[in-house]
């Protein structure tokens, strides 16, 4: 059974068929990339998988269980975490606090426990902080723990956001254009980091423009064009696919 299976997924926005009958699988322990030109429906696909928007038809199966229609927080609780194309850090919170929110699915202290500072929450609180610090360390941002998250540089904010997404040690990590705005050195570090995250047991689904990164880290690549899947194979095979080349480079003149 695949960790994630998407079958026949469709989504329309008015006249725009953003995602058209898309199916693919992500096997446990792999890194899969979804590529495609701008407007191909990649981010819509991500939002469908993470529950931000419901599909018009089709199904999203997590470990064989249908999850479409579940709200984002339920899907997160099932072990799916994500980053955003536009960085969405929590303002007026430190980097560490931001990442501690990431541990939310792995902790349970509620309103009453918080209000009365119940003893069992003390250990949980320490555990949350430990996991958060580990995640910051993983992305190489341990020294940023105390900094106000939104005052950090762009690249640092990307790191903190990634730490927040992996802090709960999710089963499936969705990365929405993680290399956007990064320079070459930062991008190659990101590639190493994504591989390290996979080694920790997290399966990764990544939407990306940066071909170098995609071809470097992915086990499989699916290509979208105008909402439809036109290829789904190993990076090497996809690079040679004439349809993919046509979509990316355009038709031969005349």
């Amino acid at each position, binding site marked *: 059974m695949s960790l994630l299976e998407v079958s026949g997924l469709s989504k329309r926005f008015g006249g725009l068929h953003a995602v058209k009958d898309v199916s693919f699988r992500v096997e446990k322990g792999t890194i899969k990339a979804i590529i495609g030109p701008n407007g191909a429906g990649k981010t819509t696909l991500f939002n469908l998988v993470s529950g931000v928007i419901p599909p018009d038809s089709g199904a999203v199966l997590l470990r064989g269980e249908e999850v479409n229609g579940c709200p*984002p927080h339920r899907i997160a609780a099932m072990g799916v*975490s994500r980053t955003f194309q536009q960085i969405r850090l*929590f*303002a007026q919170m430190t980097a560490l606090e931001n990442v501690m929110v990431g541990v*939310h699915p792995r902790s349970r202290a509620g309103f009453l426990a918080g209000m009365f500072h119940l003893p069992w929450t003390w250990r949980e*609180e320490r555990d949350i902080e430990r996991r958060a610090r580990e995640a910051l360390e993983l992305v190489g941002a341990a020294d940023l723990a105390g900094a106000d998250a939104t005052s950090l540089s762009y690249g640092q904010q990307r790191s903190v956001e990634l730490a927040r997404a992996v802090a709960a040690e999710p089963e499936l990590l969705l990365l929405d254009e993680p290399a956007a705005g990064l320079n070459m050195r930062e991008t190659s570090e990101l590639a190493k980091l994504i591989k390290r995250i996979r080694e920790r047991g997290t399966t990764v689904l990544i939407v990306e423009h940066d071909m170098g990164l995609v071809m470097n880290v992915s086990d499989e690549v699916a290509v979208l064009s105008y909402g439809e899947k036109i290829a789904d194979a190993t990076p090497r095979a996809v690079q040679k696919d004439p349809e993919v080349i046509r979509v990316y480079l355009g038709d031969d003149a005349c």
Partner: protein
Amino acid sequence: MLGSRYARVALFLAAVVAVQLLAHAAEKPFFLTQLTMAAYYTLVAAGLSLLMGYAGQISLGHAAFFAIGGYASGYLTTVDLTARREGPLVAVLARLHVLVPHADLYGGEALSFHPWAAFAVAVVLTLAVAWLIGVPVLKLKGHYLAMATLGFGTIVYSILLASESLGAADGLGSVPPFPLLPGISVGGGRAARVANYYVAWGLVALALLVLSSLVESRVGRALRAIHGAEDAAASMGVDVARYKLKTFVLSAVLAAVGGSFLTHFNAGIGPAEAGVMKSVRYVAIVAVGGMGSLWGTVATSAVLTFLSLRGYFGTLDDAVFGAVLIAVMLFSPDGVLRFDPRGALRTARDRLRGSGVAG
């Protein structure tokens, strides 16, 4: 964090004692009456601070929750059920001492709810109303949420004003004292002034302890996350709708506790307590105290409410709170107690130029 929280509550209690000693030394013991009343209004502001400053949700209807608490306590402790004494429910409640006989206005005997029972009903009723209102209303954001809660406040005010059984425009009177602990009752009377002052501010200290624990907990972080980026919070597994609702209900219950106690202390309550201007006043206090600053809100509430109750603002009472709100929004949207003069000048300049500030 833990140490600093208890240290702050201890400091707060020291300030409470200092104010009482000061009032005594200045031979103005009657100040304690308004200070006690201010404490109960401060409970509303503290709850609203959690809702607005931490969870980022506005409410222009919190005066209504204060009034629901106050009216529930006032009504149940003054309603006379003697005529229905034979009814099975009344008989059972009387046997359980939920209903107790007491002297009525005309020297006769009336059968009403015990203040504790009335208090419990007030809390549960407010919880239920806040829940029912919160579920649909909290789907709204920003201006829309403000307008919806304003509408709710207006409805409660109109109902109170139109209900003969709740005294219509006169409100409720002759509400008995609340026997809180053996020897200590929440009620007027000069002899109990000092005790009442400590009960009221002790309650505020308790609320502060509980709320500051909450904001430093896992839930508190989640609330601040909702404030910062709702969609991202949801993607981290935070049940945004549920957290907003629970915060709304919690702040409403705190308001109701304040309303219930103040009604016993003043021996009555009127419909003006549910008025829109009261709600605006609470919002102004939270804004001055600083969004996301529980302690700032409490300090601001204590000072402004006391001054207002002593009548220092005269007939301009409501206007003062309106002006305060405008000034805060223009010059220091983060609150006066976090005032940053240079930043304020910059913000004010930008705003007066009309460029606005994003977010």
